């Protein structure tokens, strides 16, 4: 298995299912698939392919509810392409 570059954790019960993270993700791994419903009745996104996460943080930047925590595991200070978008 390839080394993880980044990881997103979702505080699912804080999420309101607005979807702003889904369009912010440069690698399209945050999707609504209707697989989960939180305590408020909203549908949080699912991370379909965690291995693709670059840890860019775009999803969290767009989250109005600060429901996302993003970590990056790349050692170099490389700037993910998405930051230049």
């Amino acid at each position: 298995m390839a080394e993880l570059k980044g990881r997103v954790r979702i505080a699912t019960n804080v999420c309101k299912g607005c979807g702003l993270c889904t369009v912010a993700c440069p690698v399209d791994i945050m999707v609504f698939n209707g697989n989960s419903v939180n305590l408020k009745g909203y549908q949080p996104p699912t991370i379909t392919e965690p291995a693709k996460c670059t840890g860019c943080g775009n999803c969290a930047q767009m989250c109005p509810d600060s429901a996302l925590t993003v970590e990056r595991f790349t050692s170099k200070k490389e700037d993910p392409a998405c930051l230049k978008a």
Partner: protein
Amino acid sequence: MSVIFAKSKGLTDQETHYCPGCTHGIIQRLVAEVLEELGLLGDTIGCAAVGCSILTYNYLNIDMIESAHGRAPAVATGAKRVHPNKTVFTYQGDGDLASIGTAEIVHVAHRGEKITTIFVNNAIYGMTGGQMAPTTLPGQKVTTAPGGRDVAHSGMPLKVSEMIAQIPGAVYVERVSVHNPRAVRHAKKAIRKGFEYQMAGKGFSLIEVLSTCPTGWGLSPVDSLTWLQENMIPYYPLGVFKTPEEAK
């Protein structure tokens, strides 16, 4: 491993009342992050306004004062004159600042009060259910202009940043947006500058942040971002309208 993003200590654990996808949540988070990074959470007095922004005091981990509709700049003036060394800001929407509170925002700039105003412009009255604001775009359908804003009847939308930038006491005026991650990162830089200029005693700063109102606009949160980009930015161009250098 490094944490690229975690919830700011400037935010409380209270969940917001904002509708899903409303970008108020992003903007108040940026304020919290900036105050946390500048080490100001304990030395800041915030002034909340009337509208969707009113409950900001439940979400920001700072001392705050709720203000009557449109009066936050006057309340902030009172606070700053008692505590000139504390950081004082107002957080106001466009119904509050650009309509009922025009006198107060003009004169807080006119006096050059050393405060920072975060002006959230979503071109509509959100809290009261989607009525026309001075900032509502031509043709934009709202509950009090059901056929769309008729500029012959209601005039053209008010451009607050351009207006405030003309006032000598305003030292920093910038219009930013939060419709994509890049814009959000830039908006944070602008908000940071607004607070830094206050700390440096430069004068009045206003950061206008274009924001969405999915419920009021009748669009999905994601479509609202697109609508903002395609309709608001052409009328409300992003950019710096005043810098401390120009203010001299």
